């Protein structure tokens, strides 16, 4: 056992390493809080990728053209891959994917609330790619540089692969916005429904965010939620204007002085309700995940049993 003072010393050295931009690797000594915070953030991120497959997976069978169908399939598949990379990063800290699934399925673990909204039209595939992936990228790019090596490496891969996701979504929106009145209406309707949840997706306002200061030090976060939100709005509004869609915010106005858009009040009450499980699809998403996992159990068991039999045969020879 280490004395408290020894631990204190190690902690100081540890923080200095991070401040020097050194990476932390799995077997390095790390403060318990660092391990826990990372496990929480990485697993939430992984869960979000996996749950995120569901609202879009909805539309794979109904995509309007073969070109759109393969793009959407490839995108949802990427999300499975990203979940996998992130779960792997979690496993370097000694928590298995099965344990993390257990936390997700029991409702103990959180995932991005935005996936608790329903996808009710094809335009939602456009809006999700454009807005939700757009917001995610803003969050994720800085993480390629985070202090924990396995997380940073996973994020480099994720960001590289995600570059087509947002384009895929925006291209769907362009096509709809330039299409028939019915298509344009479909696009506007999707923007209306996804805009505010996308803003909420960047996290509670700084005053209410509990983890920020420590996370900044560990480079788990490089900018505050409110800054990220502003960045997202500033980059997205012109994209909407370019294709003739209207952001559903009467208070949205360019502020010359700040060089940014002012925007209306976010309904944080709705946000917290969805987080707490009262969103439109929380139950459906969870049932789908738990169902898939339970239906797959005999398959996973069988594969293990077969592997063990083969191993025994090999040893017997």
């Amino acid at each position, binding site marked *: 056992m280490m004395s408290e003072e020894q631990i204190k010393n190690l902690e100081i050295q540890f923080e200095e390493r991070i401040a020097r931009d050194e990476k932390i*690797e799995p*077997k*390095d*000594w790390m403060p318990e809080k660092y391990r826990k915070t990372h496990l929480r953030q990485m697993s939430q991120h992984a869960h979000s990728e996996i749950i995120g497959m569901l609202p879009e997976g909805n539309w794979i069978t109904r995509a309007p053209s073969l070109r759109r169908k393969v793009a959407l399939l490839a995108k949802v*598949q990427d999300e499975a*891959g990203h979940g*996998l*990379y992130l779960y*792997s990063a979690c*496993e370097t800290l000694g928590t*298995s*994917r*099965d344990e993390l699934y257990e936390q997700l399925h029991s409702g103990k673990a959180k995932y991005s609330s935005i996936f608790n909204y329903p996808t009710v039209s094809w335009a939602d595939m456009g809006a999700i790619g454009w807005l939700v992936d757009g917001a995610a990228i803003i969050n994720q790019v800085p993480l390629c540089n985070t202090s924990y090596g396995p997380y940073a*490496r*996973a994020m480099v*891969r994720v960001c590289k*692969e995600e570059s087509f996701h947002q384009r895929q979504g925006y291209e769907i929106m362009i096509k709809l916005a330039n299409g028939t009145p019915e298509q344009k209406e479909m696009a506007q309707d999707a923007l209306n429904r996804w805009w505010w949840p996308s803003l909420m997706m960047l996290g509670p306002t700084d005053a209410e965010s509990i983890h920020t200061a420590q996370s900044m030090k560990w480079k788990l976060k490089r900018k505050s939620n409110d800054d990220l939100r502003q960045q997202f709005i500033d980059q997205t509004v012109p994209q909407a204007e370019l294709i003739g869609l209207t952001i559903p915010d009467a208070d949205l106005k360019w502020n010359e002085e700040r060089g940014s858009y002012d925007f209306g009040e976010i309904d944080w009450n709705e946000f917290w309700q969805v987080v707490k499980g009262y969103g439109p699809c929380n139950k459906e998403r969870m049932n789908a995940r738990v169902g898939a996992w339970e239906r797959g*159990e005999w398959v*996973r*068991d069988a*594969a*293990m*049993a*077969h*592997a063990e039999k*083969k*191993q025994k045969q090999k040893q017997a020879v």
Partner: protein
Amino acid sequence: MSTKNWPLWEVFVRSKNGLEHRHFGSLHAADAEMALENARDVYTRRNEGISIWVVESKDITASNPENNGELFEPAQDKIYRHPTFYDLPDEVKHM
């Protein structure tokens, strides 16, 4: 009732001939064949590789960072292993 979970495997991929296999990440699989197939499907879907190695994670022996001092620091001052340690007359341009 689940007996055992699929173990973890580490995946190494050669991107093209002439390059070494590099650690790409990990995944779960019941056996080596499945690990290879999964690695192909997970890590080379964008044409990233031409050869894959998989090894079960538990079979890797890793050095302990606590021993980094004795393992790696003694190499730091052996500067005579590097060409810049040796003086050459300016006239000799390449050696």
